[in-house]
């Protein structure tokens, strides 16, 4: 990890000297354990603030939307796919973004760690060899990093950046036997009523803070449909029909565009796994149109285009 951090700072130090680059967007040390918040670095003095950890859960492509001028950004596999998505959708120009790819072995879920450890956590130390030491309230536990990973990272097959100007480290291995859609298949197997109940239960603690939407690089509408007032499409209260409308519509809005970066889940203060909606749509896009979001800037997302080869009869 330290090698990676040193390399990140070395690259950033070079980039801040480049006057054509407005800022370098990366991650910094948090004030509490298990979180590395985004930072924009503009001067050589601030380069030392940059860091890397297994808590860099936010997708930095989210900070590129409508940014003026040229910026440099550190990008995990998923971040790089979201940048590709931004380029394909015209939100950012390729020449305006310097992508520094960071091959990624997965980020850890702070709620998972908290649940496993039980007590309040004071320190989390990642060791070489895939072990993690968690300390708090006078005791210490050792875990395997693989047991603490976010669910999206466990099923990730794009660990290496797909588009970059330079890489911080050598690409990492991607296991071939990853079962990407087991969680979706479990929900698909439910009876229709049970499926509805599953989703109703999933969102029952939602407080409509919109952290999921606001952390999502794909959710860049200037005015989100839930914020429209003329006409107003959806109620603002905490009743299930309104909350469910928000989640379902948001999910469909990301269909064929979501890169399963998991920023929504990591940002949710109520630890809701709203990926249960989006992962199904990802699977459908793959099954129906052999489409995966954010792999090429030259093609529009699946639901924005059609080809003569599409399986639907009504298009033939």
């Amino acid at each position, binding site marked *: 990890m330290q090698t990676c951090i040193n390399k990140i700072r070395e690259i950033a130090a070079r980039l801040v000297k480049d006057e054509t680059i407005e800022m370098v967007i990366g991650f910094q040390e948090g004030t*509490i354990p298990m979180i590395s*918040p985004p*930072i924009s670095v503009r001067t050589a003095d601030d380069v030392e603030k940059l860091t890397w950890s297994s808590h860099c859960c936010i997708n930095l492509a989210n900070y590129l939307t409508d940014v003026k001028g040229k910026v440099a950004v550190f990008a995990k596999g998923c971040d790089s796919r979201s940048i590709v998505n931004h380029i394909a959708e015209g939100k950012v120009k390729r020449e305006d973004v310097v992508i520094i790819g960071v091959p990624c072995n997965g980020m850890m879920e702070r709620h998972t760690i908290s649940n496993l450890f039980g007590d309040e956590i004071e320190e989390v130390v990642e060791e070489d060899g895939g072990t993690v030491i968690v300390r708090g309230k006078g005791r210490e536990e050792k875990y395997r990093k693989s047991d603490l990973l976010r669910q999206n990272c466990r099923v990730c097959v794009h660990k290496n950046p797909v588009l970059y100007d330079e890489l911080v480290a050598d690409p990492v291995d991607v296991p071939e036997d990853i079962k990407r859609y087991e969680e979706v298949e479990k929900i698909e197997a439910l009876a229709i009523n049970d499926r509805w109940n599953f989703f109703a239960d999933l969102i*029952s603690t939602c*407080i409509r803070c919109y*952290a999921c939407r606001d952390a999502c690089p794909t959710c860049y509408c200037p005015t989100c449909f839930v914020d429209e007032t003329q006409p107003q499409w959806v109620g*603002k209260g905490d009743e299930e029909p309104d909350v469910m409308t928000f989640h379902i519509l948001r999910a469909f809005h990301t269909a064929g565009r979501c890169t399963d970066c998991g920023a929504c889940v990591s*940002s949710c*203060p109520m630890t809701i796994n709203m990926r249960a909606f989006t992962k199904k749509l990802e699977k459908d896009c793959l099954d129906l149109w052999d489409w995966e979001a954010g792999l090429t800037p030259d093609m529009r997302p699946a639901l924005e285009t059609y080809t003569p080869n599409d399986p639907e009869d009504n298009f033939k």
Partner: protein
Amino acid sequence: MRILQIQKTDWSAGLEKSRQDYRLIGPVKEGNNVSKFRELAAGEEPDFSISTTTMSPKSVVFPQSEVMFTFTTDSASPDCNIMKVPESSYSPRAIIGIRPFDAAAMNIVKMNFDTPDYRDPYWCDAYEACTFIGLAVTDPESCDFSTSTGTGPFDISGLDVLLIDAGEYFLVEVVTEKGSTWVRSAGFNKEADAESIEVLHSMRKEAKKKIVSTVAFENINKKETLDLYNESYWDSISFPCLNCGTCTYVCPTCWCFDIQDESDRKKGRRMKNWDSCMFPNFTIHTTGHNPRNTKLMRVRQRFMHKLKYHQSKYDKGILCVGCGRCVTSCPVNIDIREVCKQMNNS
């Protein structure tokens, strides 16, 4: 002040007994290990193992969504064009296990909802129906900075009763007449002996000592508003902000709400829903002009309100009780303690 002692073996029976006179509300775990305050079902007990609930108990008197009144324009209805307040029950409810800083927050929020000029009937009626049975913080979390905001782990300023978990038993400080009524209803009447009172004093001292996180805000009060407003640090503070509403929704002292009319043909209702200064819609005008149209402006507003404007207006400290919820819940770790430090020291 009267100090009682309750053996833990007698706790459940007393709690149950008080249900004859009170609806009970307390902390519970829900969903994927998050927690909040809600009404306890028959036989259900408040979960005292939760240190700081994910959601603050402000919803007990200030629900996220509340129907203010219903209406109909149907001329066939006897209620045509009459705004009807829904039948709400403001029967006595006891909030069991509210933490002292959260109860202190109620007093702060009261300054907004209950003023000489205006009384919010929904908030005030609910508040007045409450008896606050607090639970002292004996094992503070690391983000708890409540001792520097004028409250603290054993603070009784917002409470009617304070429970202190002393292992085998609870020590009970009966703070108000309301508290005394609840204690009587529950049948708790064993006076604490001198030795237990000694235990209480030492536990209070011990708990205060355990809180090491602090903030200072005196200089902010002295500084010119516009000097603070025009500081360059707002750029770096606001950069990571997602502009979600998490900080304001988990906060026990954030009181902003939005009024919404929901109608279906001839029937409708007026709602009072939580709102957040982090949202662009919070300030947008009907013209489309938004005086706070950037993230920086919204982030600055939140901290200026909490740490500057509130002090300037009331001279009673900051609009924050130091519960630490926004620190731990913010998806991008915007830490009010760090912001306060920058505002106070720069």
